[in-house]
């Protein structure tokens, strides 16, 4: 396998990993909207009246985008959606850390118990990197539809 192919397949595997993370995370949130809404409220960033609307919609964006990304359909568009979500989540976590809030992240599912902190920020930056490379790489492999 030449270098170019190795790069493409590495990116494809990372893309599938990112897609699975978002699908599982989204389904977990859909399964317990109350807990996800509580997690959003804990950040104390959004006005209280929009928290539930966000909790109702965001998990479905995660599942649909993750599903398309897994199948390799509209990779750039779905990577951009995931990149945008991750950017918002990361900013929220940074704000929470700076405020000194000791809250559960509510990121990958609602009951994972993971707290906001530097580890979570590092994980998100890694995922942001995957999404970014999926957006800028013109040719993709392991896709349902030929790119």
């Amino acid at each position: 396998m030449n270098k170019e192919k190795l790069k493409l397949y590495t990116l494809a595997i990372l893309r599938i990993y990112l897609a699975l993370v978002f699908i599982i995370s989204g389904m977990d949130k859909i399964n317990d909207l109350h807990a996800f809404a509580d997690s959003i409220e804990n950040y104390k960033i959004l006005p209280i009246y929009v928290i539930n609307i966000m909790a109702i919609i965001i998990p479905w964006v995660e599942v649909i985008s993750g599903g398309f990304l897994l199948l390799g359909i509209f990779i750039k568009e779905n990577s951009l959606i995931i990149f945008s979500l991750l950017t918002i989540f990361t900013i929220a976590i940074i704000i929470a850390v700076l405020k000194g809030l000791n809250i559960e992240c509510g990121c990958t599912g609602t009951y994972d118990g993971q707290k906001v902190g530097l580890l979570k920020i590092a994980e998100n930056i890694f995922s942001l990197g995957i999404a970014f490379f999926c957006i800028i790489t013109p040719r993709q492999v392991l896709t349902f539809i030929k790119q």
Partner: protein
Amino acid sequence: MKTKINYSVIFWIIIASVILGITYNYFSVDGIDFLRKPTVIKNINDFEESDSTSIIGIDLAQAVNFYNTNAAVFVDARDQWDFSETHIAGAINIPEFSFEPKDSILSGFSKHQIFVLYCNGDDCDISKRLAMEFKKLGFINTFVFLGGIFEWEETGLPVEKGKSDE
């Protein structure tokens, strides 16, 4: 080779998410209200035992009074990891995130038992949410110590480490 981003695809994915989200939430037995309502916290002085719809917040002096007279059961609403790090001496741990209304811990208590719930401090809401669950179960003498473990520790009041006995 297609390199441009098709923004109409993004638009339709978001529209689909909105429709699916609203539809699912409407038909789900665990659906939530579209508009979240702020938690109402009253002062203990305005408290009437029949008041089961709002949460009663208490300050440090009132919490200490309950503590010193052994009048209340102190409940730590944080997770078991936070609880094992430090908690109010004698408190029991009922993590809000895993609370089940049929929780066997509560079945042994009278509906008139006084509970003082707390979490970290002013910034955390889990004690308030757990208090609402207690109220729904009929435990009307449920209070929230707003200062939480932070204020309790700062004042040098008794704390202990270790897991819950429950």
